[in-house]
């Protein structure tokens, strides 16, 4: 018994790491307005408005209902955006308020927004509405376990700092031959989903583990500044074999090709969100914390613009 007590004492002495509540001695930062506004040519201008709270404060976050939201298009007159109540919930319980206008955005519009409220610092933001992307896509089957989607992108009137996101969404069929006909349970490791850029001469790749019979998608970003007048992009979908000795036939029947043009602000916001999400997963203890990008002066959130085009192409 004496020995056990000694061992426990030694372990306690050397391994103890105690957790205690710590009094925050820094300055209590003031809540800020949180704005989320994504504008697209052809859509009306609207935004979500809520607020942040001090991280040690447990009060709920609600929408800001009585803010003065003004917008200005191409240096014209300032106009108000009105509080729109769209959901079934009581307004007091909603996490955000929605302010909308009747204005339909056009490509190239420069829109300024200011928001004032007595409880929060005034915020302002600016955005230019980006045009929709111009592209075509075709699906080609290379062999039994490899397909290729070829995108032809055009620069059009997109600004140099914009980014095009290409998202390839497809359904996978796996014709692996198994004795007990357990094909549907077979998991396919998409080890080589490569996006090759012949002009830049470089490739990005993503990999995913999915069950045959599922939809999956992959997305790649191409800076507009890297696109000449026209641009080809090849996305290779390649079934790496989960077990080396097995044979897979992987067939992609059709793809949904989504092309998004994103303003530089919106791209930075999305990229920082991806990094934030990744850092919250495994290994977050070691990862540097991520600051989510914001172009809202004196506030938090994003005023971004985008344009989208979707096309479906069949295998041939």
């Amino acid at each position, binding site marked *: 018994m004496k*020995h*056990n007590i000694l*061992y426990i004492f*030694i*372990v306690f*002495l*050397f391994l*103890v*790491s*105690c*957790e*205690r*509540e*710590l*009094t925050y001695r*820094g300055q209590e*930062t003031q809540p*800020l307005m*949180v704005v*989320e506004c*994504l504008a*697209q040519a052809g859509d009306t201008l*609207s935004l979500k408005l*809520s*607020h*942040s*709270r*001090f*991280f*040690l404060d*447990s009060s709920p*976050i609600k929408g800001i209902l009585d803010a003065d939201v003004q917008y200005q298009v191409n240096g014209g007159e300032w106009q108000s955006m009105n509080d729109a109540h*769209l959901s079934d919930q009581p307004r007091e319980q909603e*996490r*955000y308020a929605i302010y909308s206008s009747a204005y339909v955005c056009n490509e190239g519009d420069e829109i300024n927004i200011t928001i004032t409220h007595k409880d929060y610092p005034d915020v302002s933001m600016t955005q230019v509405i980006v045009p929709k992307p111009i592209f075509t896509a075709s699906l080609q089957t290379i062999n039994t376990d490899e397909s290729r989607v070829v995108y032809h992108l055009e620069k059009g009137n997109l600004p140099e700092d914009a980014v095009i*996101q290409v998202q390839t969404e497809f359904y996978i069929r796996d014709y692996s031959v198994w004795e007990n006909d357990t094909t549907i349970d077979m998991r396919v490791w998409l080890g080589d989903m490569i996006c090759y850029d012949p002009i830049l001469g470089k490739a990005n790749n993503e*990999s995913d583990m999915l069950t045959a019979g599922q939809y999956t998608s992959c997305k790649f970003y191409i800076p507009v500044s890297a696109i000449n007048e026209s641009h080809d992009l090849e996305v290779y979908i390649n079934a790496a*074999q989960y*077990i080396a*000795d097995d044979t897979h036939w992987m067939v992609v029947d059709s793809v949904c090709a989504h092309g*998004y043009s994103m303003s530089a602000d919106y791209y930075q916001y*999305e990229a*920082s*969100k991806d*990094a*934030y999400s*990744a*850092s919250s997963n495994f*290994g977050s*203890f*070691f*990862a*540097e*914390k*991520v*600051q*989510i*990008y914001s172009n809202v002066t004196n506030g*938090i959130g*994003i005023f971004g613009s985008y344009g989208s085009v979707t096309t479906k192409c069949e295998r041939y």
Partner: protein
Amino acid sequence: MKHRIPIIFLCFCAYSFAWAQKATISGYVRELGSQETQIGAAVLDSISGLGCVTNVSGFYSLTIPVGEVALACRYVGFQPAVTHFQLTCDTVINFYLSTATHQLNEITVVGNQSNLGVEGTQMSAIAVPVNQIKTIPAIAGETDIVKVLQLLPGVQGGTEGAAGMYVRGGGPDENLITLDGVPLYNVNHMMGFFSVFNADAIKSVTLYKGDFPARFGSRLSSVIDVRQNEGNAESYHGSVSVGLLSAKFNVEGPIWKGKTTFNISGRRTYYDLLVQPILWAISAQENMHMTMGYYFWDVNAKLTHRFSDKDKLTASFYMGDDKIYFRTKDVNEYSSSEGTSVSTEKMNLGWRWGNLLAAVNWGHQFNSKLYSNLNVAYTQYNYRLSLGIGDKEEQNKQLLYEDQIDMTYRSHINDLSASYTLDYVPNPKHDVQFGAIYTWHQFKPEVGSVTMKITDESEPTQTAELNTGGCITHTHEASIYAEDNWSIHRVLKLNYGLRATLYNVENKTYPSIEPRVGLRVLLRKDLSMKMSYSYMTQYLHLLSNSNITLPTDLWVPVTSHIKPMHSHQAAMGFCYDVLGQVELSLEGYYKTMDNQLEYKDGASFLSMSNSWEDKVTVGKGWSYGVEFLAQRKVGTVTGWIGYTWSRAMRQFDEINGGKPFHAKYDREHDVSVVVNWQVKKNIELSGTFLFSTGSRATLGTQVYYETIGQEYDLWYSGANEIEYIPERNNYVMPAYHRMDIGATFHRPHKKMVGAEHIFNVSVYNLYNHLNPFIVYPRYNKLYKVSLFPIMPSFTYTFKF
């Protein structure tokens, strides 16, 4: 003009005649008995007022006018030796100094080397006597050189207990830490809580924070020059220590008396052995086999052979390893109508890292003014993280099913280097050092592999393997340098030098010319003003995620995309000697650094999908500060008080919105007090007190909901709670402070002459202040984790 020519000729003749009336005294300074050479000992002729300092081989050369000479030799911790003689021609005098330890009534010199201080040109450098290091209290009684260096002004530790060093706003990778002149990459044991230096094997430690002599390069912020003992040339000596955490030994002696000596020391922690009985008890209760533990071991060795007084060959060796392991094996046996089935589940987690260093040095004295060192060295650092998981199912001893997944992640660096350095002392006004160094580096970072093996009774064994990384980078680094310590006048001394380096990687060559200059102006006999400027280049980066220095921190080279780091450092200071008792120094510095590397937001060494070059971003940094040091060098009470006020900033285009932010180790105030008191001949007391502004952390100070859950879907009904981070490293943790005390008792052995028992008792964190190791928010509250409460420890040493 006609009249001037004879005058010039006469002057030239007079000058030549004057030189002809001089002779050179040269030799070595050694310890009496052991014949251990002493680095940085001062040799001074009190009649001419000329002096010099021994080099790393303990060699000195002094050219002075012939005639009456009163030559004195002084060195830290030793009684001075004085000799009077008539100098008529070149003479060899070897000094053998006797130790001054335990002689209370004598002057006990434990201060700086003589090329430092008021008289010396060198500023921003401190030599810490190893004897003092051994008495300073430490965690679990484990004496640690790096921990002591962290107590000096301008040097800050990372987080509590960690051995990472941050010198004048630089990163932990910007310190060149050499053992016998050969760089070591990871100087940490036990996740950084201890350093790899075993104090029993160490002869001297010198830290340079600025005013870098041209012989040093390859790092921006500091040089820590650690030299190992050569071993006693006359008789066998040694020690054996047992502490709460580790046991160690040291043995030294002659192989061939007076010619060949050895010195070997080793240590191992036994925490893993102590916890083993507890694990056995748990295993028995849970009906599973479990082993876990951590240990480190290291061995230092040095072999020295003196062919003659002019030729010496030394071989240095260091090897050390840390290992963390966790293994479980769960066996379940059950019976059914089909027979007896046994299922086995296994897991094996291992993490090991270590250094290997081997070096051979040939010291040759050409004549009384020229000494050379030829050094060939190999150094290696590697770490490996592995995880193995396996399942097995057997029925009636027939295998039904077995699967095994093994994952490894490893990195390593190999360096092979050769250097040839010369020390030339043409006259007392000049001490010239020059040389050439070539290093071949091999980097293999982030090598990952996953192997899977499945065996089924009805199927053949199936295997799959996935490998990532493994890209080997070879680089070549070649440098030449020359420096001169020039005594222009009694008042004015100048150390100037130039270092030229070529670094080749991936068919790209980076050249660098690095000027160094240091000036000392003696304002009074006891007061000097010093100024210095250093330009440094570094071709290595350490990618580090967190405040704690981890073995997983990745050493990576400069590449064709990642450029070398450069720094400019200017410093100015005053040094004042108070009655030969206390030395005061006040220094201010300003340093800029470019091509600094940081992980991008969200990046981690664990994300293996991208290469390290894709995970980092390049920026710049700058730091400035004022350092004060009051150091008592003589008497029974010695020690120092240090204070630093400093700022360290960083700026990266891709971090913090491109705005400047505080470096994570930026601490505004730092105070340290170190006291050693020799109460009696056989009793020493010591204490340290440390106070510093808390280290920095990135803390989300606001929380909000982000509702654009799906791209382009503003009306997505979900919401993610997001931390709003106003600035990287925005939060200053509570101040760090701690007091440690220790006592050492010496008791002579009754039968063995010269042998003694040494008992050391120390208390780490005397008033049990729980300093934060990390802080984090959870459920609207802020929490801290502290590692080390009050920790008493005891060490017993038998020395013979």
